[in-house]
């Protein structure tokens, strides 16, 4: 039936037949959309992680009693700026941010919608990542920090070698979740004309004027993207939590359970 429809150039009238027809006829347009969606959500997530690391660390900078006044003021100022950034970007819809920054900064950068899209997803993700990283850092026992200091590590060494490796590991499920959310949320970038999957779908639906069938194709494509990403992340997570081979095994099961519950504590 699909073959005959293709030959005749008519769209089957039922939903699934229509969807199959539309996908096979407009596959290149869909694939192009998938490509752009993945490009933006991936680069946006990676840049977002870097922003989040920076901001998350800045937000947990401690103010010591012995610190000089200028340092106390500086750290307070950094805290205020970082918190403002996080609250603004978590408190406004990405679709509004997209329109505001794309058109607002266009005279300055003269950028394409794609570059603007990556920029917007990055800074938006950065705000969420900052919170995830901060929670990851603060969920660690204060004893980890004290032990590091007690062997003479400075602030940087403590953060780099002791705190961050554990914080990132604890926060990994939440970080992965952000990636999955981004795959879906890049769809709002269609308002500034980024040719991602949603935009491409609208174009196809506009050409043939068959909305449910076309969007069924897109829904399935999004689902495949998010579900396979979830599976990959689960796999990585499992690998990360695997205990390194040890001489003993009797008491290890108990402690593996402990690690899992600790991880659940920071899930948001």
């Amino acid at each position, binding site marked *: 039936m699909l073959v005959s429809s293709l030959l005749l150039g008519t769209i089957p009238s039922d939903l699934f037949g229509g969807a199959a027809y539309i996908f096979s006829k407009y596959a290149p347009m869909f694939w192009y959309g998938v490509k752009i969606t993945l490009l933006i959500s991936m680069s946006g997530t990676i840049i977002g992680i870097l922003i989040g690391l920076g901001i998350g660390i800045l937000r947990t900078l401690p103010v010591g009693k*012995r610190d000089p006044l200028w340092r106390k003021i500086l750290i307070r100022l950094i805290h205020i700026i970082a918190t403002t950034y996080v609250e603004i970007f978590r408190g406004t819809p990405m679709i509004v941010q997209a329109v505001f920054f794309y058109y607002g900064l266009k005279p300055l950068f003269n950028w394409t919608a794609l570059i603007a899209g990556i920029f917007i997803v990055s800074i938006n993700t950065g705000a969420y990542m900052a919170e995830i990283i901060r929670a990851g850092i603060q969920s660690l026992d204060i004893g980890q920090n004290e032990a590091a200091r007690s*062997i003479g590590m400075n602030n940087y060494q403590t953060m780099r070698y002791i705190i961050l490796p554990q914080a990132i590991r604890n926060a990994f499920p939440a970080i992965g979740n952000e990636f999955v959310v981004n795959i879906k949320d890049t769809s709002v970038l269609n308002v500034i004309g980024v040719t991602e999957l949603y935009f491409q779908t609208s174009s196809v639906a506009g050409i043939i004027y068959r909305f449910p069938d076309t969007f069924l194709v897109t829904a399935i494509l999004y689902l495949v993207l998010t579900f396979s990403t979830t599976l990959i992340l689960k796999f990585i997570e499992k690998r990360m939590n695997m205990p390194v081979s040890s001489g003993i095994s009797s008491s290890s099961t108990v402690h593996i359970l402990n690690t899992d519950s600790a991880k659940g504590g920071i899930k948001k």
Partner: protein
Amino acid sequence: MNILEISHLNKSFGPLEVLRDINMNVEEGEVVSLIGASGSGKSTLLRCINLLESYDAGQILFEGKNIIAARSSINSYRTHVGMIFQSFNLFQHLTVLENCVIGQVKVLKKKKSVADTFARETLSKVGLDDFINAKVTTLSGGQKQRVAIARALCMEPRVLLFDEPTSALDPEMVGEVLTVIQQLAKEKRTMIIVTHEMAFAQEVSDRVVFMDQGVIVEEDKPDILFTNPKMDRTKEFLARFIR
């Protein structure tokens, strides 16, 4: 020779005075036990010595130098003063060996191979040869505390501070940790031990310091302090402890 000289140390948490005019010297090679009820300030004193807590007044001299003279030297001072915590505080993401190596490599800037060899020797000394590649989360409490001692020893500290090293342990694991500490005492290491193990304190210490409500009430040789204390508060405390 005094390695540590603490004079007129005061510390408050808000309105609560936890340390009041503490004066205490520790000689090189001496083992000092700090005893007293919970909240008497003994752990706070220990944490002040390692600068994990700041103090409000007074001073601490390490080898004759004020430990907070320069901000930049605090980290290098800490390498000379090893700390063993009640709750172990091992680095959870590292193996037993890595716990002992990371400080040597990152802080003391030793070569990885040199640090590795020294860590293995030290771990062997505390009886953990078979566990060097184990994740610390898989160890028992007693094993964890021995790793913590090895981690501190790997920095080659001049003084070791023990903050209730056996309080978080199951009773059957206390012995293995105390044995290690005893061995260190025999090596003439300078140690300050906060403990509730009175029999152990009596056996291992050169001097016992009894604290109550933020002040040092009495200090003496263990045989004298435990059998023939001078102050009423010491007598009361010991009566409660030794039945």
